[in-house]
């Protein structure tokens, strides 16, 4: 009997050692451990998609039942609005053409010229402190640039920062959200000569859906309501991506810090956009083609 128990104990110890080994191995840059997830990802994706479709259908039905009465009125208003927007789109298309011509003539380079905006859908939402990362349905087989070690920003349809790609397998990628304590981004107050600050996730503030803002310059006049955007410092995230609004500022002798309410509504995310930097080779090809 004691021998039997010892065997069980040895088995558990062996498994723990193996898991720890796998964990340490996964921390090394470029570790192939993520590739372990590739077959699982391929099998699970259709199941997850199926569940998401069912969920969307249920939500849509629920919404339809709730909003049925107001829908016809809203539809009429939307049709009118749509007609106006159509007109605006035509005007803007013409203006955009003029702007492009002017930009080419003056060699203006905008902040997002070297970024490709790629759409992806959510496969899973995080649910707990440590287990808060979520997966999206785009992987290195969809876009080879995801296989690189470069940081890729993930934004919502309003260009508000959601997080960054942490790892990718062939058919899906994991996103580390802005609220995660491991997430850090350099930000600035969105006004002329706005102060530079550091924005990062905080384990305590996360429960309230807030981020921490620190490294605030002493002479800064940061107040509640100020908008924070990415500064572009360090070249990791492009400048000008919306982060959120300051909800409270705490001043103390140990250093000022503030609470940031992100613009992203993590509870209703379904579609995200990846800002993928163009690879050097592609940039070189583009330059060559332009020169020709």
């Amino acid at each position, binding site marked *: 009997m004691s021998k039997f128990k010892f065997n069980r104990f040895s088995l558990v110890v062996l498994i723990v050692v193996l898991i720890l080994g796998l964990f340490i191995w996964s921390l090394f840059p470029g570790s192939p451990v993520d590739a372990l997830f590739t077959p699982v990802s391929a099998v699970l994706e259709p199941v997850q998609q199926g569940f998401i479709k069912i969920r969307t259908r249920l939500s849509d039905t629920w919404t339809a039942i709730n909003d049925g009465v107001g829908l016809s009125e809203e539809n009429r208003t939307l049709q009118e609005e749509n007609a106006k927007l159509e007109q605006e789109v035509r005007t803007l298309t013409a203006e955009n053409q003029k702007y492009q011509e002017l930009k080419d003539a003056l060699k203006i380079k905008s902040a997002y010229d070297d970024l490709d905006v790629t759409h992806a859908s959510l496969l899973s939402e995080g649910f707990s402190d440590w287990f808060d990362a979520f*997966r999206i349905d785009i992987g290195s087989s969809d876009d080879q640039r995801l296989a690189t070690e470069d940081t890729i920003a993930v934004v919502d349809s309003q260009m508000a920062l959601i997080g960054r790609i942490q790892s990718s397998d062939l058919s899906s990628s994991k996103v580390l959200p802005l609220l995660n304590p491991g997430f850090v981004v350099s930000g600035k107050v969105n006004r002329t000569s706005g102060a530079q600050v550091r924005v990062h996730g905080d384990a*305590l503030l996360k*429960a309230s859906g807030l981020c921490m803002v620190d490294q605030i310059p002493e002479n800064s006049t940061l107040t509640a309501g100020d908008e924070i955007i990415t500064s572009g410092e360090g070249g990791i995230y492009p400048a000008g991506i919306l982060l959120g609004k300051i909800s409270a500022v705490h001043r103390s002798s140990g250093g000022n810090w503030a609470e940031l309410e992100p613009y992203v509504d993590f509870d209703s995310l379904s579609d995200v956009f990846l800002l993928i930097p163009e690879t050097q080779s592609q940039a070189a090809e583009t330059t060559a083609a332009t020169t020709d």
Partner: protein
Amino acid sequence: MTDSKRPWRKIVVYIIYFILLIGLQAAWPAAWSQTAAKPNFIMLLAVLCAYLYSFNDALFCALVAGYFLDFLFGKTVGPGMLVMLCLALLSHYLLKKRLHANLIGAVLICLLMSALFQLASTALSYLPVLNNDIKSLWPGLLLYIRQTLWPSVRVNIIPSVILFVLLHFAGPYPRHSYDYVKLER
């Protein structure tokens, strides 16, 4: 069901349960929960199987559940597997002389493990920031635990009851062999 057919039944049932619950876990929207907490279906399956069935079932379910937790929601491979392994072993051995393999015992063990899971998850989140500043962090941490612990436990009550009933009537083992499995504990 003869003994020779049991392994296949077990494998097929486990695959179905894991696929369904993983899909449900992944697609469960935060907006559906009254609190910020979401039910932890994957953990409940591992805990219940570890509590009701054999040591081998406990190990298998813990590792598969932990692997999927890491795959779907974790930052790296490993922590989820270790947490689930601890919870499954605790469920299998803890209070086994006091609790019976019935609904009340199963729900109690599920709630206890939900609380431990939340504590482990919070500890994992805090470990990187616990340097010399533990004293100043402690009050905030305690408040945070008080705010998050009960919601994350109570959100698992109904799912644990449903899952127990499902496993009891359509589990990996036929009902008439249930005592045989229990004896192996």
